[in-house]
């Protein structure tokens, strides 16, 4: 694999909090346009690693390159070139759909003309033209999640980080959400996603599984199932994570 095709390169990443090693010598790379699943049990160290990759926290040691920028010296550039969405916090309840889009797009410094045209385009795609001025608190959860994702990629970032994006939504919305993810990855945006739904791990091009601060496995879902000789990703996860503490 050519180096230039990797949008994320991590080599020997270590993050310590006092004596506690949250990330224990992680090395991996993510290709441009890939859907990369980042799995692990609660407390395995996923959030710590994601915060570092997003430029929100310094690594203790190791080499990291995210979207072409250095994770020690170019954290602001990293932030500008990524998108982020989590289930817990995504949109402002007391702003309307259009106001939320404007707010986030404004933060990324997109000019108003482009915001306006792209907003109209987006509302049309999502079928939200009639409810553009509705407050987010009055929008059903499933629609909100789709909008939150669209807002996270509105500034056309190189990578979008999705932290449990589908928690609590119905099975139809969950699948529509993954169709949006697929479509987005085909436009060249890299998807870095965490989830507790093991069937969703099957939708990823490659999956890494963290156990006790280390990457215990990293491969395509097909290969992982073959290696661990199980029928689905749930089996892979249970086999690996049970080996942890």
């Amino acid at each position: 694999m050519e180096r230039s095709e990797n949008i994320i390169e991590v080599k020997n990443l270590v993050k310590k909090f006092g004596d506690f090693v949250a990330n224990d010598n992680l090395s991996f790379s993510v290709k441009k346009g890939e859907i990369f699943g980042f799995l692990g049990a609660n407390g395995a160290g996923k959030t710590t690693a994601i915060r570092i990759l997003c430029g929100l926290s310094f690594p203790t040691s190791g080499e990291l390159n995210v979207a072409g920028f250095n994770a020690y010296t170019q954290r602001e550039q990293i932030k500008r070139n990524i998108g982020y969405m989590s289930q817990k916090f995504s949109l402002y309840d007391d702003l309307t759909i259009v106001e939320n889009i404007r707010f986030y797009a404004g933060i990324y410094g997109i000019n108003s003309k482009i915001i306006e045209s792209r907003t109209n385009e987006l509302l049309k795609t999502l079928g939200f033209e009639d409810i553009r001025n509705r407050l987010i608190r009055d929008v059903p959860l499933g629609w909100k999640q789709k909008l939150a994702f669209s807002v996270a990629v509105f500034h056309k970032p190189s990578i979008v980080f999705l932290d449990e994006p589908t928690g609590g939504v119905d099975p139809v919305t969950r699948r529509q959400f993954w169709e949006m993810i697929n479509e987005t990855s085909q436009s060249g945006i890299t998807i870095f996603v965490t989830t507790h739904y093991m069937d969703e791990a099957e939708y990823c091009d490659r999956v890494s599984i963290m156990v006790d601060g280390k990457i215990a496995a990293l491969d395509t879902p097909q290969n992982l199932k073959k290696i661990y000789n199980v029928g689905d990703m749930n089996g892979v996860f249970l086999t690996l994570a049970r080996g942890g503490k």
Partner: protein
Amino acid sequence: MPEVIVNSINKSYGALKALKDISFQVEKSEIFGIIGPDGAGKSSLFRILVSLLLPDSGTVSLSGFDVVQKYKEVRKIVGYMPGRFSLYQDLSVEENLKFYATVFGTDIQENYDLIRDIYIQIEPFKKRLAGKLSGGMKQKLALSCALIHRPQVLVLDEPTTGVDAVSRVEFWDLLHKIRNEGITIIVSTPYMDEAARCDRVALMQKGEFMGINSPSEIHKSFKKILYELIPDESAYKLLMSLRNEKWCENAWLFGQSVHLTINSTKEEDEFLLYAKTNKISVRRITAGIEDTFMELMKNS
């Protein structure tokens, strides 16, 4: 007599009908699961069951006690774990447990055997403030507190939300042990795979029960022929291609396969020819809980 009897419960918040004519019964020592997405009305229903919210109409009884008229008795026999962590963050693990035991006029020793398996895992941290615990440990402490007075009915509102797959399996193992002590459990979850761990499940959407059945029978609500298609390459590409076919009724991604229903059995030949031409392996399958849920959603 059933341990829990729910009769035509309705609840509205202004114009929003949160619960529409909900009725069901739960037998003693049964694990009854309520499965549905956020906003389905699960928490409103649970708050009514434990006497914390008044229904607009309808009745609920727990062990023969009406939750409105006899709420004091109800509160003695029910253990409730709300969806949001609601123990005292500024008390230690041990202090929280002691507090809940005292409120119910008991002590930790009296029912220790019931919580031992759970509590033993958090006991090493018993001096730690509850607010400083990890998610999994908070959940175990909350369950211990809900059980400390040996309730007859245990009501758990999304105890596994945001919990990883391994911890979820362990949590359900615990619930089975508690059930075997003669305790009736009503539990909600957004994870459909957990339905298999319940004795009976209700599928809930928009304030309504779409169906109640045992996990092994729930697929009977799915009336159509369901096909599983496994492509050589991308399931997403196959999905997009299928949706352009006129015989395609519903197609959804399921891991690396696509689940499909067609408009009419008359079109099966046409569909099978398509599959053969495109080298896609096809087999008929029994609908799973998610297939069933999605089908019922369409009709509700």
